C-alpha cells in the first residue's frame, strides 16, 4: 500500500484517462484512505461551488422550487418552409444552347448570363436583350410545374393579364416566351434587393418611408384591381426596390394562382410562404381585391416591426394564426410607430374584409394625406382617426377599468361614511352599496342618433374639468388615503380614452365619456363637503 501522496500529474491522469493503467490499483488503494488526496481529486474535477450547484440543481427537490418537470422534447429549427433550399437543379438543361460560349444558354431571343434567384414556382435569370442592348430579368416557370399543362397555360394567361397593367409601380412585362422549354416572362432587371431583403438587412423602416411605400403599393394595386386582377401573393419578396426605398415595383401578379391550381391537381400543398396570406385565403374561401389589402397590411406590419405578424413551425400553424390570432401590437414592438400608422395597418389586417379599407385607392388617399401631415405637421392636418377592432377592444378595457375604479372608490367612501373602517385599496370591498346605476342613466346608442361634435366637446370639457378639480382637491381628514391615487388613475383612463376619439362626431366615444361623467357626478355627491366656516 502506498503511503506517498499522489502527485498532481497522477491525479490528472486518473481523471482524464477513462482506461485503467498499470499503477491504478495503487492509486485506488491510496485514495481509499487518504482524505487529503480525496479532497485534491474532488477539487481538481471541480471546485466546491460546482459540487454545491450539482447537488442543488440535479436533485429532485429543486424541481419544486424551480418550477416543475421538463416538457416533451421539441426541436426548434430556424428553417421555415420558405427558406428550405431548393434541390440543386442544373438549369442549363432547360435552356436553349447559348449563342456565345460565355453565356449559360438562351431563352427565346435572350442570352442568359446567370441565375439570380429562385422562388416557390420560378427561377429568375439575368439575361441580355442584344437587340435593344439592355439587361433583362427572365422568370422561368419551375420545371416541376411546367410539366403540368394546366400550370403552363395558367402561367401564360396570368402573365398576359399582368402585362396589361401599365403602372409606375407594377413591373413592366417586356414579353412572354411560350416556345422555350420552360415558359418565361421577360421583365426589366431591377437593381435593388426586394423589400424582404431590405428589412432583413436593415431592420425596421421608419414611418415616413412606410407611408411612402404603402402609397406606391396601394397605387399599383389600385390600377390592377381596376382591371379585375387580384395579386394574391403580396409579400415583401414580391416588392422590388429601386434606388433605396424611393421607388418600389410590384412583381408576380396573379402568378400564385397558376401555382395554386397546378398544385391542386397534385397535392394540396401551398407553395411559397403563407405568412402574408389573408384569412380568407387561409380558409380557402373565395377572395376579392380586399385580400390583397390584408396582405399589404402584413407587409407594412413587417416593415414597422421587423417581424412576421404570424409565426409558426408549420404552414398549417401559420395559417391557423392568420385566421384566428391577433398579432402582437405594433407599438409594443416598435414604439416609434405613430398611432395613426398603427391604426392603418390594424385596419388593413382586420379579419373581416368588410372592416378593412374598401379599396386600394381609398387607402392610397388616406396614406397620402397622412404623409403630407408627417412631412408638414403644422401646415397639414392629419386625416381622420380610424376605428379598428383593436381600438374598440382597448377602449372597452379603459372604460371598464375606469368604472371599476369609481365603483371601488364609492364603496370605500360609503363604508367610511357609515362608520365602518375603510378598507385598504388592496382588498377593495366587493359589496355594492351606493353604486349608481350608470347604465340606466345613459342613452342607448339608438336614442343617441347622430351627435354633434359640439355636445361631445362640451361633455368632454366638463368631465375633464371635474377630474382636474378632484385631482387638485386638498386632502380632508375624511378622504380615504387612496383617493388621490384613484383619481389620477381615472384621469389617465380619461386621457387614454380621449386619444382614441376617431371623429369629431364619434357617438360611441360620446357614450363612454358620458358614462365616466355619470359616475363622476355620483362620486362628487358622496365626497364629504368641507364644513362651512373653513
Amino acid at each position, binding site marked *: 500500500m502506498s503511503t506517498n501522496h499522489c502527485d498532481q500529474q497522477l491525479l490528472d491522469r486518473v481523471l482524464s484517462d477513462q482506461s485503467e493503467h498499470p499503477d491504478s490499483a495503487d492509486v485506488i488503494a*491510496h485514495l481509499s484512505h487518504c482524505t487529503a488526496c480525496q479532497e485534491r481529486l474532488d477539487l481538481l474535477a471541480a471546485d466546491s461551488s460546482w459540487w454545491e450547484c450539482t447537488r442543488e440543481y440535479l436533485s429532485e427537490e429543486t424541481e419544486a422550487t424551480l418550477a416543475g418537470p421538463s416538457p416533451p422534447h421539441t426541436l426548434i429549427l430556424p428553417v421555415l418552409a420558405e427558406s428550405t433550399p431548393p434541390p440543386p437543379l442544373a438549369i442549363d438543361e432547360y435552356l436553349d444552347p447559348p449563342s456565345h460560349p460565355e453565356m449559360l444558354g438562351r431563352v427565346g431571343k435572350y442570352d442568359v448570363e446567370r441565375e439570380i434567384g429562385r422562388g416557390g414556382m420560378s427561377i429568375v435569370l439575368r439575361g441580355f436583350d442584344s437587340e435593344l442592348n439592355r439587361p433583362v430579368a427572365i422568370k422561368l416557370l419551375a420545371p416541376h410545374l411546367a410539366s403540368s399543362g394546366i400550370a403552363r397555360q395558367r402561367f401564360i394567361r396570368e402573365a398576359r393579364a399582368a402585362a396589361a397593367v401599365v403602372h409606375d409601380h407594377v413591373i413592366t412585362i417586356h414579353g412572354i416566351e411560350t416556345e422555350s422549354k420552360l415558359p418565361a416572362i421577360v421583365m426589366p432587371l431591377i437593381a435593388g434587393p426586394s423589400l424582404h431583403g431590405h428589412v432583413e438587412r436593415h431592420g425596421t423602416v421608419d414611418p415616413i418611408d412606410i407611408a411612402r411605400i404603402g402609397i406606391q403599393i396601394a397605387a399599383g394595386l389600385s390600377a390592377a384591381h381596376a382591371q379585375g386582377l387580384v395579386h394574391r401573393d403580396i409579400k415583401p419578396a414580391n416588392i422590388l426596390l429601386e434606388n433605396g426605398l424611393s421607388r418600389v415595383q410590384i412583381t408576380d401578379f396573379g402568378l400564385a394562382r397558376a401555382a395554386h391550381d397546378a398544385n391542386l391537381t397534385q397535392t394540396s400543398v401551398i407553395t411559397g410562404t403563407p405568412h402574408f396570406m389573408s384569412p380568407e385565403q387561409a380558409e380557402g374561401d373565395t377572395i376579392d381585391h380586399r385580400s390583397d389589402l390584408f396582405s399589404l397590411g402584413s407587409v407594412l406590419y413587417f416593415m414597422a416591426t421587423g417581424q412576421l405578424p404570424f409565426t409558426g413551425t408549420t404552414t398549417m400553424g401559420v395559417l391557423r394564426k392568420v385566421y384566428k390570432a391577433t398579432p402582437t401590437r405594433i407599438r409594443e414592438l416598435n414604439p416609434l410607430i405613430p398611432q395613426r400608422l398603427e391604426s392603418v395597418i390594424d385596419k388593413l389586417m382586420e379579419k373581416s374584409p368588410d372592416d378593412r379599407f374598401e379599396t386600394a385607392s381609398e387607402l392610397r388617399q388616406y396614406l397620402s394625406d397622412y404623409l403630407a401631415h408627417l412631412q408638414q405637421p403644422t401646415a397639414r392636418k392629419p386625416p381622420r382617426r380610424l376605428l379598428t377592432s383593436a381600438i374598440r377592444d382597448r377602449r372597452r378595457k379603459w372604460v371598464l377599468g375606469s368604472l371599476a375604479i369609481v365603483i371601488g372608490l364609492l364603496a370605500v367612501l360609503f363604508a367610511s361614511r357609515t362608520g365602518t373602517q375603510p378598507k385598504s385599496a388592496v382588498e377593495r370591498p366587493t359589496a355594492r352599496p351606493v353604486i349608481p346605476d350608470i347604465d340606466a342613466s345613459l342613452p342607448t346608442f339608438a336614442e343617441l342618433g347622430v351627435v354633434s361634435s359640439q355636445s361631445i366637446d362640451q361633455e368632454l370639457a366638463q368631465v375633464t374639468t371635474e377630474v382636474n378639480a378632484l385631482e387638485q382637491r386638498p386632502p380632508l381628514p375624511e378622504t380615504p388615503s387612496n383617493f388621490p391615487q384613484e383619481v389620477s388613475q381615472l384621469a389617465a383612463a380619461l386621457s387614454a380614452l380621449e386619444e382614441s376619439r376617431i371623429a369629431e362626431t364619434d357617438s360611441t366615444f360620446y357614450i363612454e365619456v358620458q358614462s365616466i361623467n355619470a359616475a363622476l357626478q355620483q362620486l362628487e355627491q358622496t365626497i364629504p363637503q368641507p364644513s362651512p366656516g373653513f
Partner: protein
Amino acid sequence: MDGAPETRASLILRLHDRDDLDAWQEFSEIYHPLVFRLARSKGFQHSDALDVAQEVLLRVAGAVERWEPDPEKGTFRGWLYRIARNLMIDFLERGRRSPLCDADHLIEMQVDPSSLESRTFDLAFQRQVFLWAADRIRPAFQEPTWQAFWQTAVVGESVAVVAEELDMSVGAVYIARTRVMQKLRTEVQRVIQDVECREVPA
C-alpha cells in the same frame, strides 16, 4: 454580486449560421424546457405552455441575427426573458386561455435583472443547463460509475455507504465521481462560464 452567469456568447453567435444544426439543437434543448417551465409556473396549462415555448424560440430564432454580445444592452437571457414575458401577456390578451393566470400577474413580472423574478429565472436557467449536460454525458459512463457520482454528489449519500452498495472500493468511488463531475463541468461550461447556486428562493 453583479449578475448571473451569462450564456456564452459563442453558442448564441453560432446561431447566426442557420445551417449550424448542432447549435440549433443545443439551443432548443436548453431553452425550450426553460421557457416551458416558466410558462407552467405562471399557470399556463401544459399545451399552452408548449405553444408559448415554441413561439418564444421561434421569435428568438427569427431575430437572433440581430443580437450581439454587448454588456450595455443586457444579456441574451434577459432578452429571452422579455420576449417570453411579452408573449405570455399576448397569449392571455388574445383571450380564453389558461384560467389559472391573468395578464396583470404577468405584467408585474419584473424585467429588471436584479428582481427576484429575474433571479429565479437565472437559477432555473442554470438548473436547466445542468440537467441538459447530465443527460448528454450520461451515455458515456457505465452504470456503476454514474451511480457512484449520482448517489454521492447528488443524493448526498456518504462515499463509504455507496462504495459498499456498489461493491467498489472507496478510492474507486472517488475516481468515478470525479470523472463524471469533470465531464459535467466541461459540458456546462460550454454554455455558461461560472455557476452559482446560493439564494435559491425557498
